[in-house]
């Protein structure tokens, strides 16, 4: 994850507290999406950025995951995400993000 974004997320988590924040990602593939989920939950796995060794414990979901998708107005979702959803490996993204959340934040 971009180092500047890591710094910003750290600031926001400290300001608002982890329980009030949800991170929503739009990654193009499963592995990168999982890394983003891991970074905001358990710290930067590359140990390169401000979140290296910092366990924020934030919950992150990909926008295509049912937990998020089902809350969005269907027409808006189709207009904004529908096209990309057709080319993304949605099943792999969902499986990876869930697996990483379970690993670092316990069962969801």
């Amino acid at each position: 994850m971009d180092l500047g974004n890591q710094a910003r997320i750290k600031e926001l988590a400290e300001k608002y507290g982890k329980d009030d924040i949800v991170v929503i990602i739009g990654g193009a593939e499963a592995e990168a999406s999982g890394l983003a989920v891991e970074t905001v939950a358990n710290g930067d796995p590359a140990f390169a950025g401000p979140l290296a060794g910092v366990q924020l414990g934030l919950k992150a979901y990909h926008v295509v995951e049912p937990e998020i998708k089902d809350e969005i107005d269907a027409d808006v979702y189709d207009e904004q995400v529908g096209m990309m959803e057709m080319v993304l490996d949605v099943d792999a993204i969902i499986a990876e993000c869930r697996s990483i959340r379970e690993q670092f934040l316990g069962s969801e």
Partner: protein
Amino acid sequence: MLEDKKVIILGDRDGVPGPAIEECIKSIGAEVIFSTTECFV
């Protein structure tokens, strides 16, 4: 789940970009506190 939450958006240039996710979140009424579009590569 998103009601009354503060939302951080990490869009992806090659996936779903930040502004597209932002439009979706606005439709729920949650507060977007940070939105960006990055390249995850």
